[in-house]
């Protein structure tokens, strides 16, 4: 079978699986549509959360980013996993006890304020929307490269699949499809990683091969070899960093706090039956995520070593097939500046002489080809990339549709609508959201990458402090929470907009506030939110007694099972 036939087979089989699962698990009530009836077992929810969380960026781009950033890439590894500790210890159990359906539900009820609910809805929609456009684009890229069909057609097919199971199945359909998608994506990630680890170090486990000696008989450690190669070519040593310590600190914190504040992740903890299940499902989720996240830096180092070894000073006429294949997509470009027919790939010390530009996404996508793995592995990687993108897109679409149908209409503008109307509205909104996301997938705004910093920064500066204060202080009132959220959002948004959109040429360390980049500013926004909220609530009236009772109740696990039956 050819590589392309294998890819069609793998992608086709995985899609058939998702559709089958979606039909089997249709939703029939708003409770099932929003939170899968609150009956998802902890380990299943953990797996679904892992697929929901790991997007096209985790699957396709992260190892590549690390490969080019070296130690500085740790901000993603720690930032996107450490947030789960915060989720498990500070948010998930209490939000599960609270019950209900959405993050704005909690903010609106705890702060007895429609203004607070409205601010939360706007943030939830904005954060989710920025994310989903990127996922659709990822679907398009995988389709066009591996199946050689038009990128737009690829996006349409992706939209069709997501529409089918998100709109019909709601949270219940999404949960069980995500379980299937997790299995596909982790298998697709680990198989090539294991092959490459065996090839380069003789170790089956990539995480161990990462710190082992090379299999070429030299007895040299892989990372020492890579440091040496990097330095020779004028790059910084792979295991040392370039970014300022303070900046790395703040970026990591912003990603952690942002992760814990992302509505599509938080909402997953509403779907389990009990408080103890919410705690353990956060643990399972992180375990399933860690499987990929500890493997990614190993893949990054293997790929980097491989790349420097095979490409540097190689004659252009003799490059392997994968080089030509990816050159055709424009993700690798070579310009023979000195006309010697050899590829000079050199780092920052001699940047004018560099002849090769490599897109970071190639590291994962082309890895099986670079390591000459069989055709079915390449097909598997395509199916895995699609699984990662589709599962995240579906979770985000659900957040958008519940935000509009539940928070904006049912709890806001039109409280009298029936459950049936609410459910129909949720489906229609999900449908519209799919179409809008597809539009941006086909015509990507140039700023998708920039807006991701935005999504994390806003989630960190708005939701996280508001929820934490709502649980851990009884005294926090609506004045404090709303002013905290508004100050956090405005500060973070202004900083990011200033450096990313208004004055992009000033976006460098010497102009930043205390040397903190726009990616890390969400941490400062969150801190401001905490300070302002505590200060304002100290000088304004305490919340009503019923709210203080509610907080008391949230802190005790018993009774979470009933919470759903009452509200659903």
């Amino acid at each position, binding site marked *: 079978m050819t590589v392309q036939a294998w890819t069609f087979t793998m992608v086709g089989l995985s899609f058939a699986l998702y559709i089958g699962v979606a039909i089997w698990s249709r939703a029939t009530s708003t409770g099932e549509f929003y939170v899968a009836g609150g009956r998802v077992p902890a380990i299943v929810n953990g797996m679904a959360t892992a697929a929901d969380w790991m997007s096209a960026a985790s699957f396709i781009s992260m190892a590549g980013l690390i490969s080019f950033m070296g130690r500085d890439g740790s901000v993603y590894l720690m930032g996107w996993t450490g947030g789960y500790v915060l989720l498990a210890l500070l948010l998930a159990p209490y939000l599960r006890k609270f019950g209900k359906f959405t993050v704005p539900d909690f903010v609106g009820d705890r702060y007895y304020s429609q203004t607070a609910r409205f601010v939360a809805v706007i943030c939830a929609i904005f954060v989710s929307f920025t994310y989903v456009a990127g996922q659709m684009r990822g679907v398009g890229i995988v389709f066009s490269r591996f199946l050689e069909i038009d990128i737009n057609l690829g996006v349409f097919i992706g939209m069709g699949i997501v529409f089918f199971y998100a709109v019909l199945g709601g949270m219940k359909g999404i949960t069980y499809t995500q379980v299937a998608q997790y299995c596909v994506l982790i298998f697709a990630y680990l198989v090539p990683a294991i092959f490459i680890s065996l090839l380069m170090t003789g170790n089956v486990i990539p995480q161990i091969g990462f710190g082992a000696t090379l299999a070429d008989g030299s007895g040299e450690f892989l990372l020492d070899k890579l440091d040496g190669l990097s330095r020779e070519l004028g790059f910084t040593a792979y295991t040392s960093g370039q970014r300022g310590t303070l900046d790395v600190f703040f970026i990591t914190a912003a990603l952690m706090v942002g992760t814990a504040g992302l509505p599509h992740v938080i909402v997953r903890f509403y779907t389990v039956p009990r*408080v103890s299940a919410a705690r353990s499902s956060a643990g399972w989720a992180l375990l399933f995520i860690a499987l990929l996240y500890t493997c990614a830096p190993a893949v990054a180092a293997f790929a980097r070593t491989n790349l420097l070894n095979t490409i540097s000073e190689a004659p252009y006429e003799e490059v392997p097939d994968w080089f030509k294949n990816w050159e055709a997509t424009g993700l690798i470009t070579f310009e023979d500046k000195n006309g010697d027919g050899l590829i000079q790939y050199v780092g920052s010390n001699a940047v004018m002489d560099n002849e090769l530009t490599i897109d970071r996404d190639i590291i994962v996508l082309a890895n099986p080809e670079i390591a000459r793995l069989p055709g079915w592995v390449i097909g598997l990687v395509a199916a895995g990339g699609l699984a990662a993108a589709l599962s995240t897109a579906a979770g985000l679409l659900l957040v958008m549709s519940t935000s509009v149908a539940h928070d904006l209409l049912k709890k806001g503008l039109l409280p009298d609508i029936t459950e049936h109307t609410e459910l129909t509205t949720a489906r229609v909104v999900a449908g519209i959201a799919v179409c809008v996301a597809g539009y941006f997938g086909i015509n990507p705004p140039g700023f998708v990458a920039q807006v991701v910093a935005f999504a994390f920064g806003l989630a960190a500066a708005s939701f996280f402090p508001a929820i934490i204060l709502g649980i851990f202080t009884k005294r926090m009132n609506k004045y404090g929470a709303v002013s905290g959220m508004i100050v956090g959002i405005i500060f973070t948004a202004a900083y990011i907009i200033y450096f990313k959109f208004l004055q992009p040429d000033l976006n460098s360390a010497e102009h930043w506030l205390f040397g903190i980049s726009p990616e890390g500013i969400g941490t400062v926004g969150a801190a401001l939110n905490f300070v302002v909220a505590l200060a304002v609530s100290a000088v304004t009236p305490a919340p009503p007694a019923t709210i203080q009772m509610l907080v008391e109740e949230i802190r005790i696990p018993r009774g979470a099972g009933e919470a759903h039956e009452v509200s659903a």
Partner: protein
Amino acid sequence: MDTNDSRHQYWRRNLRYVGVLLIVWFVVSFGCGILFVDELDTIRFGGFKLGFWFAQQGAIYVFVALIFVYVFLMNRLDKRFSVDEPSTQAE
């Protein structure tokens, strides 16, 4: 357990667990992986520099362990204060 006093005790114990676990969380990630990474890098751990290993591997393993320790401690605490939930309902 319905007395305010026992609720209060349960909550204080909970906060203590969370506090200790978050200190560990901070030390392995922000401490070992970021603030003291260069100092730790002078120590070898197999083929790794230790600081680099914490930043790209070790911190993540500790995160997973922390959550499961928390789950264990809290389940025990819930039982002790009889605020746990019956697991008889359908799952």
